């Protein structure tokens, strides 16, 4: 039987969900027997190919996030939102209470200690969206694993269900939003 292909990425997140993923510890070896990693910080593959499962950490805060997320959606049969930021914007979305223009102006133009006032416009830098959005507002998401980060147990429960072709179901104990 061929192995399941998994891709992971972190958009507007802190990689904390990836760290929690690592906390499944020796079960990573179990996972390696049934799955290969495609694009992921764990594999260093930069371009996503056709995958079975995509795990997305973080919300959508800029144009690049949108493009990466869309590439994941195009390539993954099943797309999973992992963690609070992917699900509701999380901590980065705390900026949504402020106007983006005001933030950029204060940071780069008018704020204390600004020299050479200019909003950085290098084409390498992705353009920011007015608001940080949960990923389900941008592409269709199949499953959600909440938590900040989700516990290794929750990730493992969901992932083992998915790799064996089942619907992930988190028990009361495994669902946490903090």
């Amino acid at each position, binding site marked *: 039987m061929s192995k399941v292909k998994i891709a992971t990425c972190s958009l507007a997140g802190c990689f904390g969900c990836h760290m929690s993923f690592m906390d499944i510890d020796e079960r990573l070896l179990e996972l390696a027997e049934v799955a290969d990693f495609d694009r992921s910080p764990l594999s260093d593959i930069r371009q996503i190919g056709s995958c079975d499962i995509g795990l997305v950490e973080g919300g959508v805060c800029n144009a690049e996030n949108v493009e990466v997320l869309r590439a994941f959606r195009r390539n993954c049969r099943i797309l999973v939102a992992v963690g609070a930021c992917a699900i509701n914007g999380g901590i980065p*979305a705390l900026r949504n209470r402020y106007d983006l223009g005001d933030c950029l102006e204060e940071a780069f133009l008018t704020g204390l200690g600004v020299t050479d006032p200019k909003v950085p416009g290098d084409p390498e830098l992705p353009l920011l969206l007015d608001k940080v959005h949960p990923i*389900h507002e941008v592409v269709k998401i199949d499953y959600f694993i909440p938590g900040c980060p989700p516990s290794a147990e929750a990730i493992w429960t969901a992932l083992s269900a998915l790799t064996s072709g089942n619907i992930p179901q988190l028990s009361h104990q495994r669902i946490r939003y903090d």
Partner: protein
Amino acid sequence: MPSFALDGQEIVFKPGQTILEASIAAGHYIPHLCWHPKLSPHGSCKLCTVQVNGRLCSACTFPAADGQEVISASEELRQLRLRLTQMLFVEGNHFCPSCEASGQCELQAMGYYLGMTDGHFPHFFPRREIDASHPEVLLDRDRCIFCELCVRASRAEGKNVFELAGRGIHTRLVVNSPSGRLGDSALQAQDLAARVCPVGAIVLKETAFRVPIGRRRYDHKTIAEVSLEQEAPLVRAHWQEANHE
């Protein structure tokens, strides 16, 4: 004694009781957020929606009557309550990781109870004011769910500190003081109004992490278990007193 059927089980009630009171007193949980055993029922959160003889009703305000057929535990109603809970999450700014009420919050616990893993709807990200002017109590409107428990509690205490203003999606919690600030109001930390908030909108300062995470109210128990442990005795006591009078 008159009785009704809740999901096929007979619930004996005392005349005057609502469906919710009778059910909880009998040890059967019906989800609710805006109801509190010590305050007048309100019927606004709609989490306690049940079918009474086929019709949707709020169990917290609907009077129990002999022979009613009440359905609460259906998949259809779980789905409805899930959507209502998600609505409450997306209309406000509920970021559990940065909220000190996490683990003690009824909205969060309701989400856990209903198996909610996401907000489902687009988030509104409203801009609401925070009021930190009171020395002992913080008002974070981002987390307000308009249950009016604080409003009712403060009314019962004769202080009328809180009130809802605005309309529709612009409804907001306001404070009774000339400046509109909590620090200039009559609220005291020991008031029920300062302690009754089911979420993290009104929290006591300097108490945030006295109960460490892992030992909080809903860390190991469901909202149903906590309700039956803590609220059911209050309802029973209330109706016993009422009978003596």
